[in-house]
C-alpha cells in the first residue's frame, strides 16, 4: 500500500540536466518542487576525485556511472519481424544514472541545430520537392524554429560557459569561427580550446580542400568562468577522461558545476535520490495527472501528489514513462497510427583512421572530451542534396576525445584482432594515429520505433522498453557520402595509410556508437503526429511536460545536448510565463 505524501506544486522526474534547470527555474518562480532521482547523489568532491576517477576498468568498461542493467535495461531488435532480447550489459549507448544524469559523463560537445533541422519537412519540401524521399520517411517539423530557440541556446551556453569562437554573430561572418552556423546573438562566453596536433593537421588539410574548419565548441572550459548562477568553473587540464567520467577539476559543465549547488540550497527544492518512479497517476478522466508513484531504496512505495509533473529522464525513459502511465496513444507501426514511441531516431557515425610514421607523435592521451577541429560544410542542409538522393548531413572532424589505454588501440586493416602481432601493431600505432570522425543525422521512418516489451520486466516488475531500429537507407547513403569526404581530408593529412569505415547495417547494440537516442515523445503542431505541443506539453494530459531528446522528431547532424538545454529553458519559460498563470493546454 503506497504511503501518500503531502502534495507539492511540481514533481520532477529525473534530476539530471533537465531536472536541474527546470528545478531552478520553477523554484525561482516560487513553486515547491520535489525532484525524484533514480540513482545516487554524487558531487565533484568527493565522488569525482582522482586517482580513483581515472579507473578505466571501473568507469569505461564496467560503466559505473550508467544505468544498472541488472535492474533495468532495454530490449532490442533490428526489425518488427524479430524477437527483441534484453541488453544484459550497457554497451551501444550510455544512459547515465545518478544525480546530474548523463550530463555528468558527457564529452561536452555543445552545438546548436539549424533551422533546416527544426523545419525539416517544410524546408526540404521547398528545396527538393514533396516526394524527394519515399513515404516511409516520417520526418517532420518541430513546431519551433531556430529563431524561437536562439535566446534559449544563448542562455544555456552562458550557463555552461561554452568555449568556442563564433562564426556568425547577428549575421556578421567571422573568419575562424563556424561561418556556416545559424546567426547567434553574441559570441561564446569563453575563448576556444587549444588545438591538439592531429586537429591542427586536419585544419590544414580541410582548408587546403576549400572547407571551413573551426574549433569545436566545448563545455570543458578553456579558461576560468563564473556563470550567471554565480558558479565558477576552472580550466580543462586535457586529461582525456571526460566521456564516461565525472570531472575532478570543476572544468566540465555538468549540473554539479553549473546549477545544482545553488538549487540544493533553495528550501523550495527537495531532492530525493534512489527513487524509482513507477508511473504518473491520472485521475478518472485520464486528462489530468495527480502525481506519481515511486519506490524508494528500501523498497517502500510512495505516492507523491503534485499539481504539475515534469518528465526529464534519459530520452528512452521519457517514452517508457508515458507508455507505463498510459499517457497518449502508443504508436502502431502496422497502421502508422498512435504517437508515443513514434519517430525514434539515433545518430549516424563513422570514422577514418590516419596512420602516420613513427616520427609523427599524435599524443592522443592529451585530449579533452570536446577538443578538436571540424567542418560544417556537410552539416544539415549546408550543401545541395538534389543529386544525392538523401536528406540530412553531418560534421567531419578530428575530434578525438581521449587516448585511454584500454579503449584506444587503432591498428591498420589486416592486423589480427588478438595475439602478439596485434600487440606489436598497437605499440607501433598508438601514438601515431589520428582519427577523423563523422557525426551524422538520423532520419525517422515508420519502421523504427519504441514500445513496451511483451516479455521482459525490470526489477520492479514493470515491462522494459523495446527498441526496434536499423539504419534507414537514407542514412546509409548519407554515411557513404560523408565518409568519402572525410577520407579525402584524411588523405590530405599526410599519413602513410588511411582506413575508412562508413556505417553499415545492421545496427549492433553491442558496439558503442553514440548515446544520442532521440524521439518517441516528439513535439509538433498537430496532435495526430506528435505527443507534445511546441512547448513540450502533453496534448493529452496538459499538466505533464516532457523535456529531452525524446522531443526531437528526427535527429540532426550535431550532438544533441545544446538543444536539450535550449528546450529546457524554452519549456521553463512557457511554464512560468504562461502555464502557471492559467493552467491548461497552451495550444488547442
Amino acid at each position, binding site marked *: 500500500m503506497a504511503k501518500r505524501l503531502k502534495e507539492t506544486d511540481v514533481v520532477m522526474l529525473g534530476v539530471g540536466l533537465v531536472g536541474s534547470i527546470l528545478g531552478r527555474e520553477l523554484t525561482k518562480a516560487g513553486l515547491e518542487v520535489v525532484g525524484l532521482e533514480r540513482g545516487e547523489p554524487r*558531487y*565533484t*568532491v*568527493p565522488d569525482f*576525485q*582522482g*586517482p580513483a576517477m581515472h579507473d578505466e576498468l571501473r568507469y569505461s568498461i564496467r560503466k559505473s556511472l550508467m544505468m544498472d542493467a541488472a535492474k533495468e535495461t532495454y530490449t532490442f531488435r533490428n526489425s518488427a519481424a524479430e524477437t527483441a532480447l534484453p541488453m544484459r550489459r550497457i554497451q551501444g549507448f550510455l544512459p547515465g544514472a545518478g544525480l546530474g544524469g548523463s550530463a555528468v559523463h558527457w564529452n561536452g560537445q555543445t552545438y546548436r541545430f539549424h533551422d533546416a533541422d527544426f523545419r525539416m519537412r517544410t524546408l526540404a519540401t521547398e528545396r527538393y520537392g514533396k516526394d524527394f524521399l519515399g513515404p516511409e520517411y516520417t520526418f517532420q517539423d518541430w513546431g519551433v524554429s531556430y529563431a524561437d530557440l536562439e535566446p534559449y541556446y544563448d542562455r544555456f551556453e552562458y550557463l555552461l560557459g561554452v568555449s568556442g569562437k563564433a562564426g556568425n554573430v547577428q549575421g556578421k561572418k567571422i573568419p575562424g569561427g563556424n561561418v556556416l552556423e545559424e546567426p547567434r546573438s553574441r559570441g561564446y562566453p569563453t575563448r576556444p580550446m587549444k588545438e591538439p596536433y592531429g586537429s591542427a593537421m586536419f585544419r590544414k588539410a580541410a582548408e587546403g580542400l576549400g572547407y571551413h574548419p573551426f574549433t569545436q565548441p566545448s563545455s570543458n572550459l578553456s*579558461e*576560468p568562468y563564473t556563470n550567471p548562477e554565480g558558479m*565558477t568553473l*576552472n*580550466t*580543462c*587540464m586535457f586529461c582525456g577522461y571526460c566521456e564516461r567520467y565525472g570531472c*575532478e*577539476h*570543476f572544468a566540465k559543465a555538468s549540473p554539479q558545476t553549473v546549477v545544482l*549547488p545553488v538549487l540544493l540550497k533553495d528550501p523550495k527544492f527537495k531532492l530525493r535520490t534512489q527513487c524509482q518512479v513507477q508511473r504518473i497517476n491520472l485521475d478518472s478522466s485520464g486528462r489530468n495527472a495527480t502525481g506519481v508513484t515511486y519506490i524508494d531504496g528500501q523498497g517502500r512505495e510512495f505516492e507523491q501528489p503534485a499539481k504539475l509533473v515534469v518528465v526529464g529522464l534519459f530520452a528512452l525513459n521519457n517514452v517508457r514513462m508515458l507508455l507505463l502511465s498510459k499517457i497518449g496513444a502508443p504508436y502502431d507501426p502496422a497502421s502508422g497510427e498512435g504517437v508515443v514511441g513514434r519517430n525514434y531516431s539515433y545518430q549516424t557515425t563513422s570514422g577514418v583512421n590516419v596512420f602516420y610514421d613513427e616520427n609523427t607523435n599524435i599524443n592522443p592521451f592529451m585530449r579533452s572530451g570536446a577538443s578538436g577541429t571540424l567542418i560544417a560544410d556537410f552539416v544539415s542542409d549546408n550543401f545541395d542534396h538534389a543529386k544525392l538522393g538523401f536528406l540530412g548531413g553531418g560534421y567531419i572532424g578530428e575530434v578525438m576525445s581521449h587516448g585511454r589505454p584500454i579503449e584506444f588501440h587503432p591498428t591498420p586493416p589486416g592486423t589480427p584482432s588478438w595475439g602478439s602481432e596485434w600487440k606489436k601493431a598497437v605499440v607501433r600505432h598508438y601514438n601515431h594515429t589520428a582519427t577523423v570522425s563523422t557525426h551524422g543525422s538520423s532520419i525517422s521512418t515508420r519502421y523504427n520505433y519504441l514500445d513496451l516489451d511483451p516479455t521482459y520486466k525490470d526489477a520492479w516488475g514493470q515491462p522494459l522498453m523495446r527498441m526496434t531500429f536499423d539504419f534507414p537507407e537514407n542514412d546509409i547513403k548519407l554515411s557513404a557520402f560523408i565518409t568519402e569526404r572525410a577520407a579525402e581530408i584524411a588523405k590530405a593529412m599526410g599519413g602513410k595509410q588511411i582506413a575508412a569505415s562508413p556505417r553499415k547495417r545492421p545496427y549492433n547494440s553491442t558496439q558503442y556508437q553514440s548515446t544520442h537516442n532521440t524521439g518517441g515523445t516528439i513535439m509538433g503542431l498537430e496532435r495526430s503526429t506528435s505527443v507534445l505541443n511546441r512547448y513540450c506539453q502533453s496534448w493529452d494530459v496538459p499538466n505533464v511536460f516532457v523535456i529531452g531528446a525524446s522531443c526531437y522528431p528526427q535527429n540532426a547532424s550535431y550532438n544533441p545536448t545544446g538543444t536539450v538545454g535550449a528546450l529546457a529553458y524554452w519549456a521553463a519559460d512557457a511554464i512560468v510565463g504562461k502555464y502557471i498563470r492559467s493552467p491548461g493546454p497552451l495550444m488547442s
Partner: protein
Amino acid sequence: MRLLFLLLLLPLSAVAQPSGVQGCASCHGAQGEGNATNGTPRIAGQPQAYLERQLAAYADGRRDNGVMTPIARQLAPQERAALSAYYSELRAPAGKLPPSAVASVQRGRALAMRGDAGLNVQGCQNCHGPGGVGFGNVNPYLAGLDRRYLETALGEWRSGSRKTDPSQQMNQIARNLSDADVKALATYYASQSPPQPATVARRRP
C-alpha cells in the same frame, strides 16, 4: 640499440656536477635537500622539465623572487637545463620531518586527497600525485617540501605574482583556500616523506 646505449650512459653524465652547483648548494643544500632554517625548498628529485621551467620563469618574471631572479638571469638556457637535469637525478636524504599539530595535518590531508566541495577546490593529488609525490614532468612533488616555502608558494599563486600556470588552476585554487587551509596543507605536505628520483631505466624517454 644506440638509443638504449645512450640511455644507459645517462646516469653517469647526470651525476657529473655542472658548473653553478656550488651557487645552488649554498641555499638549497649540498644535495638539494633544502634548508629549513631559511625556508629554501628541497629541489633534489623534482622533474627536470619542472625545474627548467621554474628557472625560465624566474628569469622572465613569471616568478618573482629577490634571490632567484638575478641568479636565473645570469644562467644561459643550456646551464639551466644542465642544472635541472643534475638536480632531477639527485638523491637526498629526507630532512627531519617537522612535528605538527594533528588537527592541521588532518585538514591538510583531506584537502590534499579529495578537496572541499564548499570551496570549489579539488584534491591536490589529482595533479600532484597520490601522497604528493609528483606526476609527470611538469607537476612537482610536494611531499617533504618546506612548510614555509609551501605557504609562500600558495601566497604567490593567490596574489597572482606567480604566473607559471597558464590554465590558472593553481591561482583559482589558492584564492579559494583560507589562510588556515594554506597552513594546513603546507603542514601536511611538509610532514610527508619526499619521493626519491626514479632511476633512468624506469623513466621512459
